[in-house]
């Protein structure tokens, strides 16, 4: 075996990010957080509680999640997705890629659909967050949730919360007159866009489904907008 020499490598942990604006705020070599408390008590508070004081690397934010105000001290590196899943135990929003490539983490922020893996939570103070857990009205499922059941619009279920939130957002966008790539350029501006199958497919194309439930998802959305 020929040795070609040696090389240092710290890229092993790189999960392929390397692009700007992807929500990763990890700073290798970041010094210990003086305000955060590195002892067991501090750690525990950072993880589970809201009592940890804000500091250089943590801030207090209030998110209105599914109608309930939640005030927490968040690590500045934390994205909304991880705050929902790890801090609030709302695991409906899924982590499929952590890079805004798959849509599994889609939730609604102030009514607009977003990839929650790309949004630093610290920037969302005061925002209204709706997750899949908040779609249902009391005990009754949201009509789209029922349509997904009726149409067998999922298999493994992992992309499903994102598909649902994305579809809710897409229907609202079309209602508000937002055009898509396949909208007739001659259509009147600002008027609701009718959602046929091609419009639905185009508008949901940010939500990947590896099980291949796409045709059933499109039918489910059609059921609801009819």
């Amino acid at each position: 075996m020929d040795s070609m020499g040696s090389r240092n490598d710290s890229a092993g942990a790189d999960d392929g990010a390397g692009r700007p604006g992807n929500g990763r705020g990890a700073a290798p070599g970041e010094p210990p957080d003086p305000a955060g408390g590195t002892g067991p008590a501090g750690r525990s508070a950072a993880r589970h509680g809201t009592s940890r004081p804000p500091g250089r690397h943590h801030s207090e934010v209030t998110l209105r999640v599914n109608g309930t105000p939640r005030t927490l001290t968040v690590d500045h590196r934390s994205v909304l997705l991880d705050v929902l899943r790890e801090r609030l135990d709302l695991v409906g929003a899924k982590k499929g890629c952590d890079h805004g490539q798959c849509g599994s983490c889609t939730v609604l922020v102030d009514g607009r659909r977003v990839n929650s893996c790309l949004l630093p939570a610290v920037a969302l103070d005061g925002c209204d967050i709706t997750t899949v857990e908040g779609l249902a009205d009391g005990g009754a499922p949201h009509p789209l949730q029922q349509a997904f059941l009726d149409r067998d619009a999922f298999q493994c279920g992992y992309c499903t919360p994102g598909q649902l939130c994305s579809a809710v957002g897409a229907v609202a966008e079309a209602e508000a007159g937002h055009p898509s790539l396949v909208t007739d350029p001659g259509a009147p501006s600002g008027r609701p866009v009718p959602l046929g199958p091609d419009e639905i497919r185009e508008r949901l194309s940010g939500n990947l489904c590896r099980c291949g439930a796409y045709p059933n998802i499109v039918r489910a959305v059609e059921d609801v907008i009819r």
Partner: protein
Amino acid sequence: MADTGTALGAPAERREGRDKVTGSARYAAEQNIPGRVHAWPVAAGITRGTIRAIDTGTALALPGVLAVLTHDDAPRLAPADDPTLAVLQDRRVPHHGWFVALVVAETLEEARAGAAAVRVEYDVEEHDVTLTEDHPGAYTPEQANGGNPAHREQGHPEEAFATADVRVDARYRIPPLHNHPMEPHAATAHRSGGRLLVHDSSQGATTVRATLASLFRLPEDDITVVSEHVGGGFGSKGTPRPHVVLAVMAALRTGRPVTVALPRRLLPDAVGHRAPTLHRFRLGAAADGTLVSSLHEVTTHTSRIKEFVEQAAVPSRIMYAAPHRLTTHRVVPLDVPSPSWMRAPGEAPGMYALESAMDELAVATGLDPVELRIVNEPDTDPDSGKPFSSRHLIECLREGARRFGWAQRDPRPRSRTEGPLLVGTGVASATYPVMVSPARASAHALPDGRFAVRINATDIGTGARTVLAQIAADALGVPLDRVRAEVGSSDLPPAPLAGGSSGTASWGWAVHEACTRLAALLAAHTGPLPDGGLRAHADTAGSADAGSDWARHAFGAHFAEVTVDTVSGEVRVRRLLGVYAAGRILNARTARSQFIGAMTMGLGMALTEGSTMDAASGDFVESDLASYHVPVHADVPDIEAHWIDEDDPHLNPMGSKGIGEIGIVGTAAAIGNAVHHAAGVRYRELPLTPDRVLEGLAGPL
């Protein structure tokens, strides 16, 4: 169907559906056990060499970091049957992305920062990751995947080919492909009170438990592995993968519950891939299309640590009658990550080659592609000589042609245009073997009139709970809503994995047998049931794995209509239709979803999915979902899946064949053949991306 309306075959709704649409279904990384911490792996950034030193000091000084495991101090494992699981055991780096350290921290952010701060020094060696047909390292293995002999030869295929009236001699290339289930591989491990509890994203928790027991030298009885909800696998979770070993190591080291969720970018190197296959296909036929010789030669790669040979020539053994036949595999060990199962290993790439070659033969002989296949229908399995237990390929082709409107097709290539679009249609056959393994199950009649069946089946999205409840209700002769199916834990009676399109047959057989016994107990019982109810057990060892005198395979036919844009080079699928003969369909709703889902993956294989092993870096270039293009909504038309009622008494008590994989098998060839019909150009390398299409349109290939 039983007169109680228990509805085996009916489109029963998924039992876990409500949990999945409301977000309450929890997957392996979502087990928020008190005190749970996170671990983040460090993957090698070199392709071949050894670790000289690892500096963990910076990482350990970061807030929240609890431990950094390396080969120096990670728990010692017992020798692993699967070398890909021997992580953090020595200095060797056999391929890019091999795990060299694991950082455990209180939070995800802290674990990720810790992993980024680990410094690794390597002694780097030259690597070779490039597969070629004439690679000097190529050899013919004894077996290909699935225990299939690597080489089969009957008659005098070379001589018969040389003297055939019509000859096709073509080479096809399929790149590495990645499974990419939507849920990345994840495990949560917890050591408590002498027991080890592991939530693993796996296609089979029974094997995970056995493997962990062996590696960590623990009694199986002290381990529980739960795979309650699994976000897809497509083969990549078929056996334990390194993440679960890392999670257990971290839990043992720290005494805390630990979750390891692999970052998407690390999956291609760590969890297996479909190996690239280079095919040479030669078909010799008489002028009337009757095959006289068929030669399918496959070259593929494997890693240096594990021999995995994609059995791509195997489907050519059973598809068509030809007196002279050769099927052979050669494999080249390279410094690449270990390949493994991806949906229909063998059949998916192999049938792309065979069915493309058949289309070329149809053109060469002037026969209709459907008729050419019918002309070459064998009476018995051409390889083994056994009779088929059932084979309705011709019916699938004819039914598909009728539904698709095939009779209206103008066979001339490039005969249909719409402005800048070329329009074409194509057909391909599909097949997948019937596999089944022994399982155990229990059935329990409760005093309140309800029933419970228990078996460690796994629902990876197929609807296993639902179909097993249907099988049980049918065998018991009771309404479906009175039966509960418990699956997804190694504490249940052991059962094989959800894979090889064998899950439902294997589990269902045991459930059926347990329920049949329970029904007999109930029939003999008088008066109210005792407080504990009545129980029956089944173990299908000896029956499910008994050999068969029949060749048992599912068959299908795929039809596609595509447009080829002469300006952009984009191929779009307008229509995709499959007709299957797969025994008795046990749940019309979930079966249809599996068929169209697999056809969607086949569409990706044809048009968008492809990975490149970069010669310089030794890594896959397309290793995330931004660069590896799985089909999206806009790529997928309204897909049709149909089936033919097949009554086959030689399978299992339900009369079912597997349905999870056959949908992908012929799809890529049907689309490729449609592109040829549209454009008049024969493309022989997948995927059919716009650059390749434009290049082909610009000149003869």
